[in-house]
């Protein structure tokens, strides 16, 4: 694994953990002491050095282990990666976006040599080396979207744009917060968001769609989403819900600090140049409650967010059952002191 990457698991013995450095750079998603849905999009500009915003695609200490976990999910269920036939060009767009960005931002790990359409790609931490012809599918071991997303942290969906709508028509989805690509593929924007409570009435999706239809090339945007996960399980899929659902019932006051995780999605959206599709990377970050409370501001704020969230949202996010246990744990770290604005630790 080397010094840069953790040797850890997201299943079975669950050896996943965050180093002190990973805790310090964790993307805490709450800029204030309460939470309600909002479109909350901002430009995805390079952010403060060392943070998850520093580069277009964040590569962190969990990279190698996450890619191993993705391969295990796909071996069990190939339907987690699907691309409708007309989405191949968007897949190439995505492959280019990722390779160019990573080779530029992490030259110690990635390199890309381009000679016309003949490309040579190297990922040192994964011992991958591939020569291929850009836009020629026969020169890769699988389709371009599958190829590049087997090597890139986070879930990805590709949206085609037509009829003033976005259509989810390709994706690699193995670290999802309980939604099924296999079921949703082919749906329009409002359709695939249909199960989300409250937000439709607030017209969140109308505004988000209008905004995204005008997303410009070279001007990506980002937002956060979040939920709660018991044990550091990346693959909280509806497909496997009977396997992971029972874990919610066995957490106790003694184990919650170690087993309960805040699950944060850093969602970015990028217009793609050839296909005019939009790629939606959904990058999942996990942090144990016992790790999170080492940052006093975050501990206070998370307590207040969980305490004040409407039951309907806590139910949708799947943690209503353990909300009292969470509040007991987090309240010990909330002395009522005011918190500073914004997401960063003090």
């Amino acid at each position, binding site marked *: 694994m080397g010094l840069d990457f953790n040797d850890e698991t997201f299943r079975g013995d669950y050896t996943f953990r965050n180093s002190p450095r990973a805790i310090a750079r964790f993307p805490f998603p709450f800029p204030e002491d309460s939470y309600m849905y909002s479109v909350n999009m901002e430009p995805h500009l390079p952010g403060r050095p060392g943070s998850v915003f520093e580069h277009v695609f964040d590569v962190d200490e969990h990279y190698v282990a996450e890619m191993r976990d993705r391969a295990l999910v796909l071996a069990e269920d190939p*339907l987690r990666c699907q691309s409708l036939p007309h989405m191949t060009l968007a897949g190439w767009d995505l492959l280019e976006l990722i390779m160019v960005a990573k080779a530029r931002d992490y030259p110690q790990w990635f390199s890309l040599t381009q000679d016309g359409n003949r490309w040579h790609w190297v990922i040192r931490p994964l011992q991958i080396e591939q020569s291929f012809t850009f836009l020629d599918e026969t020169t890769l071991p699988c389709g371009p979207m599958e190829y590049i997303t087997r090597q890139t942290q986070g879930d990805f969906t590709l949206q085609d744009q037509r009829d003033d709508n976005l259509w989810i028509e390709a994706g690699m989805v193995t670290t999802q917060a309980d939604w*099924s690509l*296999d*079921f*949703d*593929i*082919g*749906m329009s924007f*409002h*359709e*695939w*968001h*249909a*199960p989300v409570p409250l937000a*439709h009435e607030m017209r969140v999706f109308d505004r988000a769609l209008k905004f995204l239809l005008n997303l410009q090339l070279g001007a990506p945007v980002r937002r956060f989403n979040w939920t709660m996960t018991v044990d550091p399980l990346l693959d909280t899929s*509806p*497909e*496997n*819900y*009977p396997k992971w*659902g*029972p874990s*919610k*019932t066995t957490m106790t006051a003694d184990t919650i600090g170690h087993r309960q995780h805040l699950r944060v999605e850093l969602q970015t959206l990028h217009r793609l140049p050839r296909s005019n599709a939009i790629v939606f990377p959904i990058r999942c970050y996990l942090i144990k409650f016992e790790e999170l409370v080492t940052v006093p501001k975050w501990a206070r704020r998370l307590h207040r967010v969980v305490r004040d969230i409407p039951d309907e949202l806590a139910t949708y996010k799947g943690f209503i*059952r353990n909300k009292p246990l969470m509040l007991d744990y987090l309240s010990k770290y909330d002395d009522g002191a005011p918190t500073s604005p914004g997401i960063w630790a003090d």
Partner: protein
Amino acid sequence: MHAPPSIPSRPVYGTLTARPGRGHLMVADGEGAEALLAMVAQAEDASNLLATAQIIYMPGPNGTDLSDRLQALTPARFHRSPSFAAALPRLQKVLADAHMGLQIYAAGSEGLIGQVQQQAMFAGLPWQAVQTEHRGSTVRRVQCVHCKGITENVRTDPFVCSHCGLNLFVRDHYSRRIAAFQGVNIDAEDPGLVPPAQERFA
């Protein structure tokens, strides 16, 4: 038919209207026959419509069979099928042979309508090209999100997946590509704790 308020992925259906076309494919089950009869009765040029129409019809999930009334219309072609599964090869052939200007109408149960739209999509036609009208049975076609098996004619919520045996609750979330609602395990967190099945669909 008035459906209660639901989520945006739940299909909405219309009322069939005869549109000008070089051919007319009408697929219906059960009470869907009455939607076809009403459409023909209101058509401006019913004789021309029927002269270029083919009807594929099957009994509804509740057993309603109005074959005689449809056959009495004397369309260019009439085919009565015992089930959608049995009608499928014929439907696929008709769609594969379709020319520009074919009008497609689907009427009856949601399962029937959804599967006609699905087959149209598979044939490369836009699903919006299929006119729809929901009549008769409200039973649902539900896909188990866990084993991916589809259970036809679901009447209760929750119900037992006919493939893997899990207890599933029925969501309004609907996939056009699968032509089914989504079923999710109801006792995943507390195995065995299954609420009594309610007859929600008839």
